[in-house]
């Protein structure tokens, strides 16, 4: 069963790659931006995001993942001893240290 399923999947991809017509047209090569014409030729063809954008995106990744630790805490909160609260507070405190550093470095200032 698994072999047949795999075989059909692989075959479909292979056949369409081998037999399908490949005609590049301007519309096909254009970057996809939700149906609108790409501005400035599209991302990667000249226009660049300011570096500042990357910094903020990176900060978002880090702080976003840190929140993931609060989900288990919230689920088990009723069963936890008060100690868990102080533990979580320590964790938030350490995050605040990072936040203070970012503020002082001026990463969040949009000029």
């Amino acid at each position, binding site marked *: 069963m698994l072999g047949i399923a795999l075989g059909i999947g692989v075959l479909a991809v292979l056949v369409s790659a081998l037999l399908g017509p490949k005609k590049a047209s301007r519309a096909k090569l254009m970057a996809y931006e939700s149906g609108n014409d790409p501005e400035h030729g599209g991302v990667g063809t000249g226009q660049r995001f300011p570096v500042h954008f990357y910094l903020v995106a990176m900060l978002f990744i880090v702080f976003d993942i840190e929140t993931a630790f609060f989900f288990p805490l919230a689920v088990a909160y009723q069963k*936890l001893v008060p*100690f868990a609260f102080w533990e979580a507070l320590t964790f938030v405190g350490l995050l605040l240290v990072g936040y203070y550093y970012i503020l002082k470095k001026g990463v969040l200032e949009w000029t």
Partner: protein
Amino acid sequence: MLTPPDVALAPLLPILLVLAGAVSSTVLGFHLPRRTLTAINLVLLLLSAAAMALLWSGPGELPATAFGGSLRADNAAVLLGLTIVAGSMMALLVSLDTAYRARLSFPEFDAMLMYAVTGTLLIAFSGDLIVMLIGLEVMSLASYVLATLQDSRRAEESGLKYFLLGSVGSAVLIYGLALVYGATGSLSYGGIAAATAGLTPGNLGLLVGGALLLLAGFGFKVALAPFHQWTPDVYSGAPTTVSLFLSTVVKVAAFAGMLRVFGGALQNAPFWASALQLLIAATLIVGNAASLFQTNFKRMLAYSAVAHTGFLAMALLGTPGLGGAALGYYLLVYTLMTGAALAIVAALQRTEAGMNISDLRGLYHRHPGYAVALAACLASLAGLPPFAGFFGKYLAFQAAFQNGYVWLSILAVLASVAALVYYLRPAMLLFMPDRTPAREYPHGQRPATNLTVALGVAAITVLGLLPNLWYGWLADPAIWELLAGR
């Protein structure tokens, strides 16, 4: 209500003190001058060392643990932790003199160094694979930043290489961890060691695969050939103070992790030792051969660090009792002699690329103190008595030899004879007549570097004459046979 976790402050204290240094550097760095902050961090490291010394458990005492054994402050942890603190203090002291000149960003340098030390201590104190992994990653991530900190093309290139290869190493290691967990159903060293005895053939296969992946991952971190390619580029491309830190403290911590995992958790697992001996043989050949052909002194020291990885890893092949003690002794000596040699490079170099070996000619006539100290370091690195490097090598070879690795021991002896050539060539140049104009960085008082070099050289001389000052603490085999707990 669940039971509160078993949080004990005493075994955590050395780590918390270093973390406090890291956090305070992050916050106070905007308000305090560089030297004050470094001084605070030095004091915190000393306090951490004192806290570790207090954790020493005498005969019959049980070691302090926290989090249900996930953190073990046993004697092995204390001894490795003290070695780590010694190396970190050397790096910080040298940075007092050179960080400004090297344009290392502030306060990031101090903060990242202390975060890295926090990670290294977590590895030394780890009682299960998760804590080891957290420590290893905290250390590695901070080290990637340290290698990149200087705003120069060389530093950025070395940082990217370190990062890419280091993260591959981490990924391999984590996959190995997952396989070992799958084979044994436990992540704690004790649980894994207990489960290795009665495994089904399927699980045994998983365990062997996991152990080999862990070995490869650690191979990346300690620079065992063929996973060593990043080492010379990173050590010679990073600012010298950072190279000092990376080649001493980070390597000690990675070996501490290997000791915990292979000497403790996987000590009865099959097959990894045979693979390790092949890696060591390759490392000895590659490291020593490449060192012979270097013209840049800093790069030669980087290759010598690779060669020393081979010598150090031989101790892992010994029985846990003998090998652990040998590794513990050799790691401290290696830290001191490499640290002192790189401190001298940091003080004398004109640029962060270090100096050429030929520039060392006649150094004795310009800086007699540095020349004598450097000669002592080189002799110790080469393994000549009466310096401590000799005793370290002897112990490591003996550990491997007594456990039946005869051909590897012979290869290691041959390799260290070949190593004499590249260590003694610069050492002799130091005392040659002075025909070249001075090529050292001319300015500046370097009291902190002088102190570091003096202490390091004094220590390797004294430890060479009276090895039992340090080895006496390590010699009890019980310390190293209980790496995984009871």
